[in-house]
């Protein structure tokens, strides 16, 4: 089975058939061994690398490989699923979603206000702490999805910024 894997900007083809591994069509002396359900040991050119591998449920074609505290991302390019879904929301519009369940304490801006990146939009309380939810880009607040006192769940729309 030939697989196309993207790491950052680069794309590789990898073919694994039993013990034989071809990278971009050339054989490589790589020794792969599973050391646990999601723990893979790779000995390549005398170097031992151990990865803990996971997939994110939200993005199943994306593979997270963690080694010595650093996590790298790899994408499996599935020929049957070349078409990529568009990014959420109309272009240039930012949907500010609740990062977790909590209660809206105060709104710091009104609908229509011009905000700059990093500016606090509202204050959410969760786990006894009050946290400012900030704009991740500059723009105009199209609408506020919540009012003070509202309980929100993760993913709820807090505000839309254009």
């Amino acid at each position, binding site marked *: *089975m030939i*697989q196309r*894997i993207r*790491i*950052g900007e*680069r794309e*590789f083809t*990898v073919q*694994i058939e039993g013990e034989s*591994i071809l*990278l971009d069509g050339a054989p*490589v002396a*790589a020794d*792969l*061994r*599973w*050391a*646990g*359900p*999601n723990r*893979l040991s*790779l000995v*390549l050119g005398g*170097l031992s*690398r151990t*990865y*803990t*591998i*996971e*997939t994110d449920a939200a993005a199943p074609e994306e*593979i*997270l*490989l*963690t*080694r*010595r*505290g*650093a996590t*790298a991302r*790899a994408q*499996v390019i599935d020929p049957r699923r070349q078409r990529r879904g568009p990014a959420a929301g109309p272009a240039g519009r930012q949907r500010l979603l609740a*990062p*977790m*369940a*909590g209660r809206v*304490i105060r709104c710091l801006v009104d609908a229509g206000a011009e905000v700059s990146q990093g500016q606090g939009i509202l*204050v*959410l*309380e*969760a*786990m*006894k*702490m*009050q*946290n*400012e*939810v*900030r704009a991740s880009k500059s723009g105009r607040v199209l609408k506020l999805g919540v009012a003070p006192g509202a309980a929100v769940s993760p993913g709820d729309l807090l505000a839309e910024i254009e």
Partner: protein
Amino acid sequence: MFRKILIANRGEIALRIARACRELGIASVAVYSEVDRAAPHVLYCDEAQPLGGRAAAESYLALEKIMTAARRAGADALHPGYGFLSENPALPEACRQAGIAFIGPSAAAMERMGSKTAARALAREQGVPLLPGSRQALASAREAEREAAALGYPVMLKAAAGGGGKGMQLVGGPAEMESAYALATAEAQSAFGDGTVYLEKALTAPRHVEIQVLGDHHGQLIHLGERECSVQRRHQKVIEESPSPALTAEMRQRMGEAAVAVCRAAGYTNAGTVEFLVDAERNFYFLEVNARLQVEHPVTELVTGLDLVHRQIAIAAGQPLGLRQEDIHMRGHAIECRIYAEDPEQNFFPSAGTIRHLRHPAGPGVREDCGVEAGGTVPLEYDPMLSKLIVWGENRAQAAARMRRALEEYELSGVRSNLGLFRRIFADPEFLAGRLDTHYLERLPAQPAAPAAEEGAPLAIAAAAWAAAQTPAPAAREGGPAEHWRRAAREAGLR
């Protein structure tokens, strides 16, 4: 000695106290809320009593429920841990009335220390240097503005009943006062059930240094040196270490003596902590007393070789301390990282959820006091601290290298955490040089200086192996990594 101790807490500290109980041959009783039925402290303790309720106010903060549980279990002592009811004098008082020993100071001493304004008055009487500030609790934002104008900005608003950074707001000028006052009182109210705040002049770049004290019921009161806790975010300590890179032996002695004097004047017993701010000229100022065991007590344990929870229990049982000041020697260097479930990409917002994967560091000089397990959930009702990673080294450089190594070994997924922040800190030359103050984290570069990019080829091979293992083979559904692994384990077992 006690037969049975009820632990009025949850998370890593409940587990840490339960471990001490087991070492001492004392039965431990866990209490739990509705969301904590399968939490590690409940699984570990010898006995368990339900409190009902989900929110802290209906469970771990519900004094009547805690006391009912203690009576029902037949506990002869109660350890409050930190947070929750640990600094509420009503708890030691309720214990006294129920004939249950409270493992901590008396209600009277706690009351004296618990009111930050009263503690400041006590320190003033003892001649301990103080930051200028309001002597009384503030009645309104307007009064706060008047006091602040007299003191000069910046000022710090603080919860009179507080601790742990909750209800604290730095105020740079009069325009910020109204909203800061509202935020501080609201947070103090929600965290401590008391919205009273006061204010202090704020130093521009102080270090936070605190002294651990230990006193028995026979008049012996000593200090166990300092911890530096300057690495803070939103007034919450993130890293603590002992000794402080800033202190000289002479300063340690003066600060230790000041701490002991304040505690002696308050009739303080058991473990407590006296917090100070240290300015750039190495002047120190009394901040407050934490009348309980601190989160960061393990760094003191590692450098002094004393077990503070064992000592607390022995003191509460009436045993003499059996230690003089000259018996205390600090050896080597210890550092602690507080691992929180929080999302660094979302302004460090708490991140609740299920721990999918957890791999702990190990090896020389590494201690972890962890309150979660793989497969367990992090409820959003409580403080999001997951674990404390503590290392010991012969000196600060070795301890820091060891922490860096342990952080590399640490794997956690399912909830977002601040592990990446620690990896950056332990690669930062400023931190490694010990140049710290409470604004250190604001200066920390967002990205590591030289990101060590993983080579593409090995990653691609590993990713392909994983992807191939995920795809069901046409004939038998074999080939998943779990299947490979099980087969390898079977073969190994047959050998």
